[in-house]
């Protein structure tokens, strides 16, 4: 009887061992893209409040703690009003996306656009909303297209929050995808990313400045530098952007001074050799937050880097390690 019991115990132990070996092999799998909800983790404390997007939900980061402020319902690309009391964000569902005004705690105040339509091609997109410096308008990218045409390019529009009137600011280059990332300036001008395709079929992104609606504007960067995703500091004296040279697996975060007429100064590279995107200035303009994987091929995390270029190279640090943020949604950073 004892012997039979011993054999049974040994058999169970062997089966458990075999299962353990199986499980151990599973644990050896690459885990660079495993992510959790931001609210299930914490982060080093940063000054002020940040809002980020992950998997269709918006999260607020304050005092090192993430709080989910919207449902996971297609929310992305938040931006804050000048006084920080409101957010404007995109809600993307299937074939369309709309803009919404939200409180800073994520409660819907108003739907600004209504882009849902029956046939797929009759729907519209709105992306990259930004408040004007005085908070009375929202700038955004919109696909003003001929329904049924293959040409779907984003142009930048401004909508009055008072009466809903809409003004088209930019005219995109045809069949390039269009103009994105509008940043309205205090002086009334607009900075954004414009795309072009040259005779050699090469795509170029350029940061562009336009003083008034429906004018030509001027390029602030060279086509070969492939720059985009601009951000302007709160005092309007600095511009940050992402520039990609020939390497498709890395992009630099660059900061330049910004003249009143949109003229940029000499570029200073803050981050190099990472797949960086979506830079944004801290409220005091001394730090830039951006998104990049911690390990090559991994999910996107929140990083910060000092604007002082002499410190930047050694001081870029990952604030999160496993949250997998929506990299097309630049973080919002308010005081």
């Amino acid at each position, binding site marked *: 009887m004892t012997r039979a019991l011993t054999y049974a115990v040994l058999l169970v132990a*062997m089966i458990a061992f075999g299962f353990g070996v199986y499980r151990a092999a599973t644990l050896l799998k690459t885990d660079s893209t495993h992510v959790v909800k931001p609210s299930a983790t914490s982060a080093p404390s940063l000054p002020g409040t940040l809002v980020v997007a992950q998997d269709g939900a918006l999260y607020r980061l304050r005092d090192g703690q993430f709080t989910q402020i919207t449902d996971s319902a297609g929310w992305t690309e938040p931006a804050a009003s000048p006084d920080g009391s409101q957010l404007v964000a995109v809600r993307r569902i299937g074939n369309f996306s709309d803009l919404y005004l939200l409180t800073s705690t994520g409660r819907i105040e108003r739907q600004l656009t209504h882009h849902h339509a029956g046939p797929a091609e009759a729907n519209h997109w709105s992306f990259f909303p930004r408040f004007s410096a005085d908070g009375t308008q929202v700038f955004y990218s919109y696909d003003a297209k001929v329904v049924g045409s293959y040409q*779907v390019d984003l142009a930048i529009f401004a909508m009055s929050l008072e009466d809903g009137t809409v003004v088209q600011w930019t005219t995109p280059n045809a069949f390039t995808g269009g103009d994105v990332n509008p940043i309205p300036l205090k002086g009334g001008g607009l900075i954004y990313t414009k795309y072009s395709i040259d005779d050699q079929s090469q795509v170029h992104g350029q940061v562009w400045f336009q003083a008034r609606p429906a004018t030509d504007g001027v390029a602030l960067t060279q086509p070969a530098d492939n720059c*985009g995703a601009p951000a302007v500091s709160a005092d309007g004296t600095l511009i940050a952007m992402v520039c990609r040279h020939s390497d498709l697996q890395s992009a630099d975060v660059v900061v330049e001074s910004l003249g009143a007429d949109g003229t940029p100064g000499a570029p200073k590279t803050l981050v190099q050799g990472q797949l960086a995107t979506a830079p944004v200035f801290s409220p005091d303009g001394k730090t830039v937050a951006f998104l990049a994987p911690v390990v090559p091929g991994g999910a*996107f995390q929140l990083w910060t880097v000092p604007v002082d270029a002499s410190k930047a190279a050694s001081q870029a640090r990952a604030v999160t390690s496993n949250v997998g943020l929506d990299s097309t949604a630049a973080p919002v950073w308010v005081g």
Partner: protein
Amino acid sequence: MSDFSTRRVREHSGDRRTSPLPRPSIIVLGFLLAALIGLGAYFFPLFQSSTTPVVNSGGGILNPITIAGPTEPFTVLLLGSDDDSKFVADKYNTQSMILVRVDPSTKSVTMLSIPRDLWVPIPEGGMGKISTASQNGGVDAAVSVVESNFHVHVDDYAWIGLEGLIKLIDAMGGVDLEITNPVLDDFYPADINTSSPYSYYRVALMPGAVHLDGVHALQYVRSRHGDLRGDFARSERQQELLLAMKAEAKHLNLADLPDLAQALNGEVKTSMTLQRVQQLFSVLDQYNSANVKRIVLVPPYTSEGWAYGQSVVFPDWNAILPVVRQSFPSS
């Protein structure tokens, strides 16, 4: 037998009868067997895969780290097809054709995208779009039409369908890449896992660095309507995806192989042996983007036009072949 020896035997027999434990060697063997069964269960998908040549290589599970990389340059033809329910099984066009040459000695990779509408002599007769060669002759005909028109020798091929690509990228954990400009398409085919394969939906992929899952990566390389470059844009993006997959593959290890094999089960056809695949993986680490040459046959290498009522791409062989000879010198 002496009394002494008889007693020893009895004592020994008595010990065996009274001890509940089997011999230690048996116990160790049992645990080893259990470990082997555990490992076997884990790696079972590798043997179950129906990517026939790989399975039949008979090499078992080989650690990529221990395998020496190839020393001679080799050329692989990568083929991608729309294999949804609109098409008859095994009568697919090759929507994507990319010649890849790997030169271990110079640690360089050359990728040449062949336009799917390239108007060429088809070995089975007549002129046609290069993508249609595989409709009747299968993958072998696709290889043959490339070899005969581009004057290259193809060492191996790898074919993948739509769902295969999605599963492969998901099994890799997604890929990171830089979307160069907004990709907008109002007529993207909704032909996967659907009862109405001719329907469509809207795609919008925003520019910048992103982490893409399989579905979105497929959208990125398949969308063509909203881009000035049409199919050439797809070719560019397909090469970008390959580079992103190469970067992602660097992080994979032996334990990831079963998931990959399971994902690719029935979705990939290749002439490469398991050992060749592993050799390829082992040399990927040594390459960086600076050593990757990308060629897309945009004008003036090609020109768009019409033939027999079809929109086609005419090759300028006087321009193309010198580039091919230079980039695929051993061919």
